[in-house]
């Protein structure tokens, strides 16, 4: 089995899986009907993307592993998502800030993944990028609306951006797997996305009359499987059925 490729795919897909699960938590709990539907629709897109990735990973694994096993039966340390996406839904400003900070990265990442020499990955990227550009439109729109909104909405959005800023740098860290995949022409060199990312984020923050944080203190660890305490709770819910009734199928 191609160990590096398998791990690389999981690293990409886990971001969508965990963020999709977070957004799914808002089903029936969104601040308004429209935003509720929007968050769950984005969640659905992300889960669809995860299925494409995990089906491919299962094929590479070549044993009797299925997409569901990969999604449901790993331990916390085996999930390689970035810390940003596992942060909990607190208020809507925070949820949208988390979405925006990830969407800008996701869009830049997929644009590069389309050029992968791995044809399955480039096809998945080509499909997903259309959906993700719509997500980014939606989340950046909310940054503007709340940032350039009322005194209260602006304060909440600024607080959310400040609070999540510490998780942005990790997006551009390279793991050993990443490096190997870049060398093979399969993976994306995330270090090269950094400038584009911060330029785009700052531009939207400017437009929204928000401050771009200056803090240089960043958290990391997710890509190595070292997570914030929030992931454990999320996985408890995500994996509940499989843990309680092993091997159950829908």
């Amino acid at each position: 089995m191609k160990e590096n490729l398998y791990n690389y795919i999981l690293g990409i897909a886990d971001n969508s899986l965990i963020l999709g699960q977070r957004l799914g938590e808002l089903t029936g709990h969104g601040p308004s009907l429209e935003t509720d539907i929007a968050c769950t629709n984005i969640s659905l897109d992300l889960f669809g993307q995860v299925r494409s990735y995990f089906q491919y990973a299962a094929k590479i694994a070549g044993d009797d592993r299925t997409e569901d096993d990969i999604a449901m039966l790993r331990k916390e340390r085996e999930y390689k998502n970035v810390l940003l996406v596992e942060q909990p839904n607190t208020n809507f400003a925070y949820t949208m800030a988390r979405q925006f900070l990830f969407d800008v990265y996701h869009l830049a990442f997929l644009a590069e993944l389309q050029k992968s020499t791995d044809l399955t990955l480039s096809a998945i990227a080509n499909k997903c990028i259309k959906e993700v550009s719509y997500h980014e439109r939606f989340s950046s729109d909310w940054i503007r609306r709340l940032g350039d909104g009322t005194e209260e909405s602006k304060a909440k959005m600024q607080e959310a951006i400040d609070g999540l800023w510490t998780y942005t740098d990790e997006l551009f860290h390279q793991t050993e797997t990443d490096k190997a995949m870049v060398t093979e022409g399969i993976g994306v060199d995330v270090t090269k996305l950094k400038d584009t990312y911060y330029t785009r984020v700052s531009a939207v923050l400017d437009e929204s009359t928000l401050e771009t944080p200056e803090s240089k203190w960043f958290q990391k660890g997710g890509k190595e499987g070292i997570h914030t305490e929030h992931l454990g709770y999320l996985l408890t819910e995500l994996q509940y059925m499989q843990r309680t009734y092993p091997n159950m199928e829908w």
Partner: protein
Amino acid sequence: MTTTEQNIDEILIPILEKVSDPEIPVLSIMDMGVVRSAVIKNSIVKVEITPTYSGCPAMDVIGDDIKSALKQAGYESKIELILHPAWTTDWITPRGRKALEDYGIAAPLSAEADKDVLLNDKRIVKCTNCGSQNTRLVSQFGSTACKAQFQCDDCQEPFDYFKCLK
């Protein structure tokens, strides 16, 4: 480059045309453009379909429905999901667009007009009830991943708009 060519055996067309999107029953999967190829090989039909949106829950149902429609016609089949080239709303046929409109869903505009409508509050989407273009976006996301919600300010009818995907 992506290719938009379809490779569908003529004998199979009438069978596949009877299968519809479970979310939009008036729209056949042929008119939606999700069937990319259907060929008979060694008496087994191999059908390739492409999802509209990655997470579209209708895809599994569509696969099952194709299988049973072909079985009724006496064919065994194998369904394969392909991602490349990615589906675009350009593949919806003129007949499909009309079916959408008749059903109360506004058909997708061109990519540029679509952007104007979804981002810049332009009023150009035609109300499916009264035909007025005095309509506004209510929500960027609608009842399914492929639609956005609109309302007509003349007749007050709320309706779905099928978003342009390109």
